[in-house]
């Protein structure tokens, strides 16, 4: 049987089937094997899909051969094929990482459940990205969110429970808002297929229910993507989750939520409608700037590295939203490429923090004193990640910043240019808090015997750190895809 035409379905089905398998097999090493194979297969499929889309254009796949708009359509274009690669790539690295990292974080008898939830979460995130159906997005969002709550709650610290609960409350409100918005759109258009919905909306554009739907979806998704000031759930969730989960979620969950926002704004509502009827552009700009400055400032005063970099995520999401608010090809390119660049950067940093937590027994600034001596490689890796957050040339972050600056410049908004570079200085401040503690303080006595980092953790981490530099130099994959995707979202407008 030829599986090639069914790759879009398999992209989601493979991890989805792996989930019950891990429960049935129970033995943790077997469960790990199943999860690993599933995630690597998912990566292979997403790379293949990306390749196909790049060469032959958008793929439309009808689930169960029911043609759209009646059946559910999986629709893969440049934008979501890019996202699929990010999500499955991070999962393929985070899974081997988790094998060793959860040893000390999760009770052994729950390990198989960890893998179940992990692949379930992966399936959910991939599903959101791949589907062309509005209600399907909601379903997969719930799949990924529910499993993410469980994953976070598995954290060793008791506060992980509270963090998961907090995330659950906020996440549920977000999902509810989203489903209300989708419901309103369904009411007005009679379809759930995103592309179809986009076409039919043209005739009812600007009516009150549609505007209400826009508002509901914006707020709902903004909660999920932790747009400042709707970010409160994020720092706790990242700080107390098991380190593999922090890495995976930090790199993918918020990025997928941003994708949903992009999809609704540009494919469904059409950017003209979004930005004409409501002052969305100004609002997004305001939120983005507030996030960039406020969250970075909060990050400076954190005493725990995980929380520090979690707040940095909120700030970096500000950049992504800022790019969106320009409503231009270069601005959107910046947003999309930053999804990826920030994804690998934060993935790397949280994996490194996992290694540090294992080696030094914690990630508070007080504990990682002298990290440069105790764990020179991990420490250096965090510096590289930090440089990417600052947007230093030669790192992935620089590419995103370049496009953001370009987008601001081409609209002649010099004040925004300076806001962007100033906020990256704030990043320099919080990164340098780490540098000074790691390299200028003598290590503490109680961290004298650093446990060697297992290779299952160090290898995936190293790959991601190298990727930060690689994608800072070779942009053919990232910018090539992102600029195409941006142009497509804006309907070929250059």
């Amino acid at each position, binding site marked *: 049987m030829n599986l090639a035409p069914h790759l879009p379905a398999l992209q989601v089905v493979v991890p989805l089937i792996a989930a019950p398998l891990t429960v049935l097999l129970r033995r943790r090493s077997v469960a790990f094997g199943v999860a690993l194979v599933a995630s690597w297969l998912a990566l292979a499929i997403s790379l293949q899909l990306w390749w196909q889309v790049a060469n032959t254009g958008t793929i439309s796949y009808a689930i169960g051969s029911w043609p759209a708009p009646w059946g559910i359509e999986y629709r893969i274009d440049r934008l979501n094929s890019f996202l699929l690669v990010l999500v499955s790539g991070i999962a393929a690295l985070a899974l081997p990482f988790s094998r060793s990292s959860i040893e000390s974080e999760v009770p052994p008898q729950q390990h198989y459940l960890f893998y179940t939830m992990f692949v379930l979460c992966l399936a959910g995130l991939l599903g959101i990205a791949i589907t062309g159906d509005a209600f399907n997005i909601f379903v997969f969002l719930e799949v990924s969110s529910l499993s993410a709550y469980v994953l976070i709650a598995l954290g060793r610290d008791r506060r992980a429970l509270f963090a998961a609960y907090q995330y659950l409350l906020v996440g549920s409100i977000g999902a509810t808002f989203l489903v209300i918005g989708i419901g309103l759109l369904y009411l007005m258009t009679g379809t759930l297929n995103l592309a179809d919905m986009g076409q039919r909306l043209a005739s009812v554009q600007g009516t009150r229910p549609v505007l209400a739907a826009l508002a509901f979806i914006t707020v709902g998704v903004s909660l999920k993507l932790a747009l400042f000031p709707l970010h409160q759930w994020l720092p706790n969730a990242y700080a107390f989750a098991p380190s593999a989960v922090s890495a995976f979620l930090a790199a993918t969950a918020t990025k997928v939520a941003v994708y949903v926002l992009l999809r609704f704004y540009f494919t469904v509502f059409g950017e003209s409608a979004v930005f004409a009827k409501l002052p969305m552009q100004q609002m997004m700009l305001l939120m983005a700037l507030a996030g960039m400055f406020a969250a970075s400032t909060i990050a400076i005063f954190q005493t725990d590295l995980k929380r520090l970099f979690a707040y940095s995520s909120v700030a970096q999401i500000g950049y992504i939203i800022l790019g969106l608010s320009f409503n231009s090809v270069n601005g959107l390119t910046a947003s999309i490429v930053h999804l990826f660049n920030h994804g690998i950067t934060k993935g790397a940093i949280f994996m490194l923090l996992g290694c540090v937590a294992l080696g030094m027994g914690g990630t508070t600034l007080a504990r990682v004193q002298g990290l440069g001596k105790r764990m020179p490689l991990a420490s250096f890796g965090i510096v590289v990640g930090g*440089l990417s957050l*600052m*947007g*230093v*040339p*030669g790192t992935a972050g620089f*590419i995103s*910043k*370049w496009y953001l*600056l*370009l987008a601001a*410049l*081409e609209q002649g908004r*010099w004040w925004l*240019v*300076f806001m962007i*570079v*100033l906020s*990256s*200085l704030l990043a*320099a401040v919080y990164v*340098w808090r780490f540098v*000074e503690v790691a*390299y*200028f303080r003598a290590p503490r006595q109680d961290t004298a015997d650093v446990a060697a980092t297992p290779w299952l953790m160090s290898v995936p981490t190293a790959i991601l750190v190298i990727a930060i530099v690689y994608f800072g*130099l*070779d*942009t053919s994959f990232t*910018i090539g895809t992102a600029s195409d995707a941006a142009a497509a979202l804006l309907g070929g407008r250059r």
Partner: protein
Amino acid sequence: MLTPEQAILASMAVPLTGALLISLAGRMPNLREAITLVTAAVLLAVVLTLLPLVLAGARPSVLLFSLLPGLNIAFQVEPLGMLFALIASGLWIVNSLYSIGYMRGNQEAHQTRFFVCFALAIAATMGIAFSGNLFTLFIFYEVLTLSTYPLVTHHGTEKARDGGRIYLGLLLSTSTVLLLPALVFIWFIAGTTDFTVGGILADKLKPGELALLLGLCVFGIGKAALMPFHRWLPAAMVAPTPVSALLHAVAVVKAGVFSVVKVMVYVFGVDTLATAGTTNWLVAVAGFTIIAASVVALTADNLKRRLAYSTISQLSYVTMAAALLAPLSLVGAVMHIAAHAVGKITLFFAAGAIYTAAHKTEVSQLDGIGRRMPWTMGAFAIAALSMIGLPPAAGFISKWYMVSGAMASQHWLAVTVIVLSTLLNAGYFLPIIYRAFFVAPAADAHDHPHGEAPLLMVIALTATASATVLLFFFPDVPLALARQMINP
């Protein structure tokens, strides 16, 4: 033999390989130092293979790869970059000899890290020298900042950390907040950032915009230490002296003024700037920096601090001479990059030798030291003459050209500044020489018997002092390169 293209790449690959080997040889200090010296020698040889080609008019270039359309990592050797690479790689050999003596003589810790970072910094310097466009230059400029940070904070003390904060804070924020937007803007306007003879901005901007962009560039290149962004240089003096010598008298600061000249000549274009008449303010700012820094130097008792402010002042000579836009003053600017490099490195070498042999850091402690360290203080005297601009030292030639250029363009403000600052230079250097040779040593607690510093250090500072004199008698190569830059 290497092809020119290979030589360009090798000029960065050699120090990088050196850094790798040095880190591997960390446990064997003698081998490690041998690697440093061999690397430095090979690098100079590689750079020298390019010199005859450039003098003959060739402009070898390499396109490494394209980051974005029109945004390439590319290298091109032109006369100015050739000169800068020659200075930096030539002085690296001497400095390595000196560093070995200094680091061992003072029993410094973390010597492996020191030599590794040093080699990385040199690789970045070569990248700056040979960069074929502003974007490549910007990347290596940032790499240079980051790779020198561990050198500045080498001692790891609170003081080193604070110095490092100012160093990194100022250099990073100027380059990020001012230079980066300028870079993006230039790319946006011109569609390229390639260094092109005659500039790439002709007829593209109004004079006001041009002035603004020039301001973003020259202040954004914080390494040129134009006031008010000069504070990083004195702060960087917490570093061990070899670092101050090579990096903060040659590589880093020269990277700054080199970039300023390069941007003005190859991005803006001398003619474009002259037509728009947008550089008078720069002459004024640079002139102010020259005078103000000299006054501060006059009051500084700490020797390295005095030298640091002297550097700030001397760097602005280059910026001011370039901003005059006259052909003669441009030659002066280029010549001064070379002349000040050999002179100032000698002064820092001497300061380090005094610290190593006599453990003295303040000018007021130097009474009679010339009798115990005649070689060191003799070299110091020659270099000081060069700073003041007296024959037979290289500084005379560059100052001659600068004054001629200023007079030719009838820029009397610039002439006044040069004359006044010459007096000030004499005012803060001559007393040191006087103290060293003509005042009897004070018999106080600071005093203890000592001779010259370790031999390697004395050899190094004698060599650079000789170079200062030689460059006076044989200034042909730098002058030829400078003329080529102006009349390609």
